[in-house]
Structure formats: C-alpha cells, structure tokens
C-alpha cells in the first residue's frame, strides 16, 4: 500500500510539472525549420511570461495537412502566400483584429493589400523574397539576365534546378511568356517539354533543394535556381557569387503570420504577432535568417547595408515584374503528372 502511495505521488508530481510554467498561458507556434531567431522567442517569453511551444515544418504541403487535421493544435502558423489563399478558401483562418496588432502599421505599402489576401484581412507578412539565378561571376560568359541561360548548351552540366514543382514549372512558364499561374493545359505542356529538353540535353546537373546553397559556395556548378535568402547566404560565404532576377519576370513570395480559427489562445497569438512586428524584433529576425523584411521601420534600423543589397532589397521595378503564386489546387494532379515526366526523362 505504501508503494502504491509513492507511485501515486510521483505521477501527480509529474502531472503538475507538465501543467506548471504556464502562468500566462502558452502560444503554440508552427513555423518553417530554422526560420526565426531563437533570441526573439526568448525575449518574447521574458517580456510577456507566455510560454512559446514551438513546432517546425519543411514544406507548405506538410504544414497544410497538419493545420487541417489537427484543429486546435496551433495558435500561429507561417504559411506562404498561395497557402494563405488556400486556407482562406477552406475557411480555416481567423479574421484579424488589427487594433490588437498596432505594430502592423510598419508593414510596407506594397504588402498592405496583397493579391493572395486582399487588405491583409487574414494575414500579416513576416518575410518575403524572390526566385532568381545564383551564378558564379568568374565562370559566366556575358550577363545573366534571362531564364534562357538555363536552357542554353553553353552551361551544359553546370546547372542546379530546384526540385520543387511550382518553382521550376513557374520559371519555364515565364520564360515562354506565360503566367506562372496559368490554367491552360497546353501552356503547361509546352513548359514541360522545355524542361524535358533541358534535361535530355544534359544541361541540368541535379534537381535539389537544401543542398544547393552549400554546393554553390563550394563552386560545384555555375548556375543555380535559388530563393533570394538562400542566395544571400551563399554570397556572404563566397564573393564570386551573384544573384539576378531574370527580365522575363519571376516569382515573388511572402511568408505570413496567420491565426487558425481553431486556435485556443488567440489573445496570446495576437501578442506574438505584434511583438514580432516590433521594429527591433523584426530586425533581429531579418538579420538572423537573411530574407527580406516587409517591415519599413526595421529596414530603417538596418540601414545602408540592407538598403544597398540588391539581393535582399531589390528595386521596385524588379518586384513589379514578379508575380505571386496563386492557389491552383484543381490543377495539382496535372502539375504532378507533368513533373513526373520531367523527373523521369532520360
């Protein structure tokens, strides 16, 4: 009987430990892998006494499955633009009460009314960037200003493509002069043919995602399709590298804060968003992950080093020729089928 008592006591102690430390509650954050400065999370916990319960994902698709199938599990999620659009259409997102996010006033003008979420009713931008070509200045002939270089024999065997369906199909579509949100099967098939040709002509060295930035630093290829933040990471480690957004246009994307309708800690979620939009905190995060900040006040704090860097702070005309992805859910099977043909072309 005594033993049973000890066991009971131990279990209840354990339970208390699990519940404690939540005096001011928790906020459950679901973010990309390595996509926030740990320092900013600590500062948030210190200031508010709210415990941050932090979870990670690597692709938008993984994240959306979790948000759909685990209602109530998350208070803050960081989806990309077209996924915000998708989640809104599935009626999963809370309409934001901006009176609780005063720091949202720092968000740049061009992101106040984004196409994926008009007037920003459901989302606040966190980071943004472009897709472009990272290249080795010492080994290219002539300027890199068109997607065309990816399809020319000149760089055969020296091109890294992204193993990511929408990004790669998107650039092929734009090179052909189509929209990267096209709903014309014939245009998609022409883009597919272009990518198959590119592969059959042995121009592509590899299709990969995470490995590319380090391999480019090591000089493993001359050209690589990359996201601006990853490009910035490579450039800061190898002076020979440069980044360019092709003249045909490209993809510009925004990762956002959203609050799921099912969130159980909405007040804390608002506090979290407002805290992260505070200029000093936005600066900490931006300098840590090296993507572009949508926060004008934070940009001011970062000064010339940020403002004069065309990779992370492209001029307005570059942004103007870029397009957001839109949700194309009903075309996904077509995309997947066509992409399989590219991946298996020999």
């Amino acid at each position, binding site marked *: 009987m005594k033993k049973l008592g000890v066991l009971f006591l131990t279990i209840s102690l354990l339970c208390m430990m*699990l519940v404690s430390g939540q005096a001011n509650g928790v906020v459950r954050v679901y973010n990309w*892998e390595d996509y926030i400065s740990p320092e900013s999370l600590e500062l948030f916990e210190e200031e508010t006494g709210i415990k941050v319960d932090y*979870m*990670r*994902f*690597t692709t938008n*698709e*993984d*994240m959306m*499955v*979790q948000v759909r199938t685990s209602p109530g599990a998350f208070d803050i999620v960081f989806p990309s633009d077209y996924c915000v659009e998708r989640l809104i259409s599935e009626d999963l997102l809370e309409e934001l009460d901006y009176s609780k996010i005063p720091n949202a006033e720092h968000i740049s003008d061009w992101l106040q009314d984004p196409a994926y979420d008009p007037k920003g009713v459901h989302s606040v931008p966190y980071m943004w960037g472009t897709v472009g070509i990272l290249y080795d200045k010492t080994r290219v002939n002539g300027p890199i200003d068109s997607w065309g270089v990816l399809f020319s024999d000149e760089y055969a*065997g020296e091109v890294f493509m992204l*193993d990511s*369906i929408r990004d790669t199909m998107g650039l092929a579509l734009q090179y052909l002069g189509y929209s990267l949100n096209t709903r014309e*099967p*014939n245009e998609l*098939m*022409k883009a*597919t*043919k272009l990518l198959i040709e590119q*592969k059959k002509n042995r121009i*592509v*060295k*590899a*299709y*990969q995602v995470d*490995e590319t930035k380090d*391999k480019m630093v*090591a*000089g*493993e290829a001359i050209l690589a399709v990359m996201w601006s933040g990853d490009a910035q990471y490579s450039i800061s480690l190898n002076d020979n590298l440069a980044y360019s957004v092709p003249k045909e246009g490209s993809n510009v994307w925004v990762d956002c804060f959203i609050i799921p309708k099912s969130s159980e800690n909405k007040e804390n979620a608002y506090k979290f968003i407002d805290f992260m939009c505070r200029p000093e905190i936005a600066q900490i995060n931006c300098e840590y992950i090296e993507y572009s900040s949508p926060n004008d006040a934070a940009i001011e704090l970062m000064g010339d080093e940020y403002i004069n860097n065309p990779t992370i702070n492209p001029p307005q005309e570059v942004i103007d020729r870029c397009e957001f992805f839109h949700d194309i859910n*009903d075309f*996904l*099977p*077509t995309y*997947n*089928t*066509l992409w*399989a*043909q590219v*991946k*298996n072309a*020999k």
Partner: protein
Amino acid sequence: MSAMSMPAWGIWLMALGLGIFIVMIILSLKKHRGVHRSLFAWPYSLWMIVFTVVPLFLIAYYAFTDKAGSFTLDNFKNFWDSNYEMKKQLIDMGFDVSGMELSDRGTVNVDTLVYSLWMAFKCTVICLAIGYPAALFMSDRNFKLGPTLIVLFIIPMWMNFLLRTIAWMTLLEDNGIINTLLESLGFGKLKLMYNSNAVLLGMVYNYLPFMVFPVYNSISKQDIKLSEAAMDLGADEIKTFTRVTFPLSIPGIVSGITMVFMPSVTTFFIPRVLGGGNTEMFGDLIERTFLTADNWNVGSALSLIMMVLILFSISLLRRVDPQGEGGSLL
C-alpha cells in the same frame, strides 16, 4: 522533417500497456509457478498487428478506393498509364485532351519500375560477386584476420545509412575529395556523381553487408570434416569447393540475394543524394506520390504492386532453398 512531438497521452498509453503486461506476468507466475511462455509473444504480436497487419489493410483499402472512398480500379489504370488521372481531370474540367501533346499513354510508372528492377538486379549481382569471395576468405580457419574483417564490416553499420550516403557525396562531388586528388596528381576530373552509376555504387555500398553476413554464416558453420573427407577421397581444392562447400552455402546465398534484392528495389533517397535527382527509382516515385502529390490512393496502388512483385520473387527463390535453411523471410 516535421517535428511534431508525440502526444503525452501516447506515452501514457504505452506505459499503461507495459504495466498491464508486467502485472500479467506476475499473476501467471503466482498461479502456475512458472511463466506461461505464450505470454512473451504478446508484445510482439500486438506490435505486428498494430504496425504491420493494420497498415497492410489500409494500403489495400486506399489502393482500391478513390478520394471519396468508393471502390475503383483507376489507381491501377494510373499505374499502367501515368497520364490517366490527369486526362480524366482535364476532361472533367471541360478541356479537349485529344489533340494535346504528352497526353498519350504515360509510361513513367512502368518505366520506373523496370528501371528499379534492373538496378536491383545489377546491385545484387555485384554484391554477390564481391561478397561471396569475401565471405569465403573471411571464413577460412587459417586466415587469422577473418574475425577482425567481420568487425570492420559491422562498424560502419553503427552509423545511420543516410549519413553514410551523404558522406559519399563529399567524396564523389566534382570538387570532392577524389576529384581534387586526381587533379593534383595531374589527371583530369571524372564525372563521378549525378548519374545512375553513382546510385549503383551507393546501393552496393549500403547493401553489401547483407550479402556477406548470411554467406559467411553458412560457410563458417559447415563441418570442417566434410571438406577434409572430400580431400581424403582424392578431390582437389577446386573440386572440394564446387562439390561440397558451394552447394552447402546455397541457403546463405539465397538469403543474401533476398536481403539485398528487396531493399534494392525499394531504394529511395540514394538516387536523390548521389544521382542528383536525375534518375528516380520506384521508392522515390512512391514517396513523391504520397508526400508531394498527396495522392494516397495511387501511392497505395504503387506500393501494393511492388509488394506483390517482391512476394513473387521471394517465392521463386524459395524453390531453390525449400527448407528455408538460409533463414529466408517467408
């Protein structure tokens, strides 16, 4: 990796299960003054049911249903014609697909399966060609370094195969260790990576131990008196090998072939890392269908086809070794 932590109730449930199991053992000890042996099979049987039998039924269910859950054979049609689903959907959306490019029968799935079988066959043959002599050599009683070599074979397996495969990348890259060495010696660089030979190398490297160990076991447990008798009766070394040692090692070979061939067909990840994603194997295809395309129905059909194929090849092998002495898996 999405790092969703295991829910707390899951841990409690496992603890509860373990507790019940221990209590049952204690109870049976008291009653019978000896443990009921069948009790010890419980945890494993439970494990098998939850993590093998149930998932198998789920795969079969998904393979024969559509997204809405009603019976269909479309998933298998999609295996034969990889454009099937796309065409069906485009027609539903009101497009005329008859004149469209790339809308003939898609051969992606069938081609990938054939390619995977061919790669697995090559891998198995190479593993046998390297592994058998190695096992023969190491099991020779006069060869003092044999046990040491076996340990050296085992040591790399202490490390996860993903990490070992990534390590090969550092060796084979265009600016990797081997090419840097070749260049400094005055030779040109070689294209070692981003092709299917690199994938084959990665497969042979990873699966070779699965060939060596069964063969080594079957040779080293042979009674030395048998080959001594053959020698006494006038057989030379070669004849002793072909008439005694080799036939007795066939169960080991069969088991080795099974253990290498099966994971080879289902290989994934290696083509992505060493092949630069330029060639896709059937394992990659299934993974992409499930995760990227989020199509569990077609993915399950592909998995089912592969399982049937593997069962078929194992049953063929069983004819060679009917007693299953090599400990084949069926």
